[in-house]
């Protein structure tokens, strides 16, 4: 199965240097851990035998692509993380990479496209996966923390088993027929391993993907505004970042005293204090409370 990972370059938050994007390295790390091993044990157990046929993930053929300057030396570093080659599509500075990337993906026809949640350099809006998925007509699952291949239980085609991060220890598992586009969550396991020899062996390949900016995608128009293509950064005033933030609030004309009094009276009272009664009764109260709050999980 062919998988393509999208790589970007980031700017280091402290030094300002151009670096490999930590988000994309995480995605790469997740993919490489899937290649060598069988399905994630946690995932396998949970999907109730659905993954009985889980095959060795080694059948992923992983390619990487980056749209930008092919002479950027930092791209070389990605090779050290286990990529034999990276395809680089040349784009001009500030050019929208989406049309060319979409064209490239249409040519390559991968069954799986993998991207980080958000670029940590450039515009960093997290929109690129959505635009590409729309342009090449792939379903998209955001915020995944693992992906694996398995033999189909419905027919003989291969299927993807992927799991999505949700807060508070919840996960959502999907079995999906390819093709599929996924973004990788910040909580995905991340163990990037840089190997110098791999970097030396790897290769940056310049590829051409000639797409005219007006791809064949048609967008419906929202009648409020009249735009012909997605313009992400137009009319934005760019300036060096000012880290100070102020919170939006309605300026109230009440006095400081009144506001303080309100705060006091709202937080006043506090919770329910149980002092009398036996310890067993207090334990019973706790037990009822955890049952009510639906957090108690019966031991299996």
């Amino acid at each position: 199965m062919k998988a393509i990972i999208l790589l970007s370059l980031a700017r280091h938050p402290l030094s300002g240097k151009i670096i490999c994007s930590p988000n994309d390295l995480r995605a790469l790390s997740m993919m490489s851990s899937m290649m060598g091993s069988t399905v994630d044990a946690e995932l396998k157990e949970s999907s109730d035998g659905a993954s009985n046929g889980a095959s060795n993930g080694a059948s992923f053929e992983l390619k990487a692509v980056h749209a930008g300057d092919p002479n950027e030396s930092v791209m070389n570093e990605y090779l050290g993380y286990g990529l034999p080659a990276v395809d680089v599509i040349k784009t001009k500075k500030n050019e929208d990479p989406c049309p060319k990337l979409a064209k490239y993906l249409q040519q390559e026809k991968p069954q799986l496209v993998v991207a980080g949640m958000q670029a940590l350099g450039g515009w960093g809006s997290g929109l690129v996966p959505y635009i590409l998925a729309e342009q090449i007509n792939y379903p998209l699952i955001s915020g995944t923390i693992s992906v694996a291949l398995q033999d189909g239980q419905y027919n003989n085609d291969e299927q993807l088993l992927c799991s999505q991060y949700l807060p508070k220890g919840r996960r959502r598992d999907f079995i999906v027929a390819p093709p599929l586009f996924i973004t990788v969550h910040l909580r995905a396991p991340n163990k990037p391993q840089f190997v110098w020899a791999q970097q030396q062996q790897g290769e940056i390949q310049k590829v051409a993907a000639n797409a005219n900016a007006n791809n064949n995608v048609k967008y419906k128009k929202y009648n409020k505004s009249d735009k012909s293509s997605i313009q992400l950064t137009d009319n934005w005033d760019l300036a060096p970042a000012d880290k100070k933030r102020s919170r939006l609030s309605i300026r109230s004309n009440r006095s400081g005293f009144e506001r303080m009094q309100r705060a006091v009276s709202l937080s006043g009272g506090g919770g329910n204090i149980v002092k009398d009664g036996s310890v067993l009764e207090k334990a019973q109260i706790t037990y009822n409370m955890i049952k009510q709050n639906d957090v108690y999980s019966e031991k299996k």
Partner: protein
Amino acid sequence: MNSIPRIDPHAANRGFLAASGRKRIARGRDLAEGEAFTASQQSAQHQLPQIVIKDPKEFVLVCLHSREGTLSNLDREVLYVGRVLAGRRTDCALTVIVFGDLEIDMRQHGADRVIILKDDRYTGYNQEEKLSALEHLIDKLKPQNILFGESAEGDGDLARRLAVRQNMSIAPGVIELDDNKVRRFCDGGWQQGTHELTDILILNSGTAEADFDFETQALMENKLAQIPTKASTKEPANASKVLQEMMRSLSANEVPLEEANFILSGGNGVKDFDKLLRLAKAIGASVGGSRVVVDDGKLPRECQVGATGKTVVASVYIAVGISGAVQHLQGIKDCRYVVAVNLDESCDMVKRADLSLICDAEEWMDSMLELLGEESRKSA
């Protein structure tokens, strides 16, 4: 000499009664002549100003997912921003679209109109279905702005899909906004972009105070909530080919503490930590602790909750024998329901807690284990 006004602190009408029931004296807050000190007078004063929008002509939309019937702090901030933006126009209502059930009073959260979508088709990761509902409502209401939170429940995901599908202008990761400008960081935090308000705004946390000192109507828009099934339109080519979708929850020992939904935490008041661990296992809670016990090596460092430990967001947090130092309370500020088990009724943890049990920690743990043993025998 008499020109300086003097206030007699012993006058009968001096001061007022605070909610706590104590008499307080503050400038300009005296009772009128002959009025009695009653608590009810206090609550009457605290009638919040009402915001009534009879016949809205314009709309601001907020779209969010509820979880267990409640909203997160980020959701509250987004609602607050929505209310402020709506308030800056005349006859403009804040309409809130909620995916999932809601148990809280939306009048205290700035909503003028509420649309609750909790059909089966909106549960799970059915983003296409949610998207078409949104598209339908946008078409009906023609909102000025549509607000989302950059939450882990999939709001930001939905917002981006909407922007791409409908080709609307979008500002993701908004860190600051006012009447007519939004600001976001880009280029890895080295640059910022400012722009007039876009169609879609995805807010990071920290954009607003979320201090709702007013009440709104929160009228249910049941008619709008009837969204026609899109049987007529043909399946889009990229309709998800998801063959199976299932939810699961990691068991308590697999969940990282920062994510845990249910935490049993022990402090200096606990002597037997084996017992604490046994109890945690029996009730399916993750284990946390205060810094003192972690420093003493009674629990591993990963378990430390607080300023120098982990910030937790559990729905239920049980603090056994923890005094509630500010450094510890900082770590549990986002916990929904806090239980204190402590001998000392006056400690800060009891002040913070929603439920406090004044008893010995060991005895309480014994009783809990006994009770759970009984329950499991009953059900067996």
